[in-house]
């Protein structure tokens, strides 16, 4: 870099008359380093502060979260019937099991299951006939058949996924086919005997 005419070399240009340390390093050197480090650090902090909202804006918005909880009236579902409902834009199965279906679900040897769970673990106490599960096959996300009358309920009388042939039993457990897990049980509570709050 060119030197300014008339200013002897070795002197800090902007501060020609400033103090010079014994070891020859200008006192301003460290001050300038500090300013440099402080400025660049603050740039980092500022960038992070700006990046956070730009990332978080892609999370579910307030109106989406507001739909995260629904109430369903189950008084019209007779034993042996099932309904498909929508929760968080996803299908949910609510099934009123018959005593025979409960019996067949309880008759299975737990050890033989791909994901060992009892019917009692998958329902609420005293409400063993109400099987509430997500209507999403745990294989690749299709909606299994078996809610409407006359639909294929698979080899085990529960649900059957037509995409790749996964069979679920009357407790919504995977029994045959490629799906790795039982149908997911969402969080829910019985607000009254006939009103279920999901989510």
């Amino acid at each position, binding site marked *: *870099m*060119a*030197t*300014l*005419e*008339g*200013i002897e070399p070795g002197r800090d240009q902007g501060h020609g008359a400033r103090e010079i340390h014994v070891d020859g390093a200008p006192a301003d050197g460290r001050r300038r380093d500090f300013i440099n480090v402080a*400025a660049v650090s603050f740039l980092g902090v*500022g960038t992070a502060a700006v990046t*956070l*909202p*730009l990332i*978080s*804006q*892609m*999370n579910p*918005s*307030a*109106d*989406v979260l507001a739909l995260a909880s629904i109430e369903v009236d189950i008084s019209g579902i007779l034993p042996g019937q099932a309904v498909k409902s929508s929760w968080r834009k996803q299908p949910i199965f609510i099934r009123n099991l018959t005593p025979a279906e409960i019996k067949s679900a309880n008759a299975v040897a737990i050890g033989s299951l791909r994901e060992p769970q009892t019917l009692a673990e998958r329902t609420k106490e005293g409400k063993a006939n109400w099987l509430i599960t997500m209507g999403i096959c745990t294989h690749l996300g299709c909606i299994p058949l078996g809610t409407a009358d006359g639909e294929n309920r698979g080899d085990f009388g529960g649900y059957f996924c037509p995409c790749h042939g996964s069979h679920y039993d009357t407790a919504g457990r995977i029994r045959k086919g490629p799906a790795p897990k039982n149908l997911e049980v969402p969080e829910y509570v019985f607000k009254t005997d006939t009103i279920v709050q999901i989510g």
Partner: protein
Amino acid sequence: MSFPWAEVYKPKNPLMVWMDERLPMPRLVYNAIGAGYPVPRNLNYFWNFGVLAGVSLVIQIVTGIVLAMHYSTDGNTAFQSVEHIMRDVNSGWLIRYAHANGASFFFIVVYIHIFRGLYYGSYKAPREMVWLLGLVIFLLMMATAFMGYVLPWGQMSYWGTQVITGLFGAIPLVGETLQTWLLGGFAPDNAALNRFFSLHYLLPFVIAGVIILHIWALHIPGSNNPTGVSVKGPQDTVPFHPYYTAKDGFGLGIFLILFSIMLFFLPNYLGHADNYIPANPLATPAEIVPEWYFWPFYAILRAFTVDFILPAKLWGVLAMFFSILLLFFLPWLDKSPVRSANYRPTYAKFFWILVADVLILGWVGGLPAEEPYLMIAQTATIYYFAHFLIILPILSKIERTRPLPHSISRSVLHGEAAESAPPGTATRPNAPGLGQTASA
């Protein structure tokens, strides 16, 4: 490109050597905004505004892409989707306010950038292409900003669209057909909203492309400087990095502080309350005004009230477009060989009168078209054109300019007043050390 004494990029790291032989991108950056780009050593803070404009464009593109993720381009849902952004989307209010105020700051920065060029004669040879490309960017910005203001689909959006497309309707014979074609209908509706959204998304990237040309054209002769005197040797320049990265960085900090103050404390100050009312094709707001950055042009548009051969409405439209097109001819209207107004005392006075004139136009452009504002707008409009078409050509012939400094480095060392004083006069500095080399 650049000066022969520019520092040469020499990568030391083997990876960078490998990279340089295959895709010399770091070399390009080094030569464009690194130590390989020598810049006049005497630039003042007005030279920050090019970088600030670039940062503004980046802010607009980043926030704009985010807004497009949540916006709905449909006449029935557009307004709701903007309210959804404001209320429901995480940090949506911040991102939308940053985009709306970012547009205003972009224009503030660009206006200062343009007037900087006018004051220091940066439009003159050999930088005409830099000036012309800058004007293209300015026109693209105006189009982009206008179409962006339409998207919230509030009352101002709707009636602004009606009025601005109506400008094209003033063109004789084809005007009405043209307006219908622009809108894709007989009034602003879904078709107009969708095409405006599409173009609003596209144009910023076109602007980015023209900015690359703008910088390319700038880097051929290098930056102008406050003396307007060309660089004569290595002693006149310093490397862009770290000298001007630091100076621009400081200016950027100030810019971001001011931006944050607007963003967090006065987010709606520059907006119009009527745009929080959903678009209603059956009711016009009491008063339609464009965004503040269009006010000077809006004042020129409304200044014509008398039919003279052509209808007054058409005169207004022509004058408004010509007020910008005129600037494309500026390098050839002002033929003075002296660039900087620091050495053109009379031009400097007229420059500041022009600044005041444009501010007055902006002031009346935001007010109702009534007396006395109308007369003020007419006077200011006449002066605006007179400045470029009459005053500048005459002034560049008859003005007696001050003597220029011998070089940038000498004006830096001795002070501009002393350096431009005639040799041998008392104001000539005679400090020890300095005087010796000055006479050498």
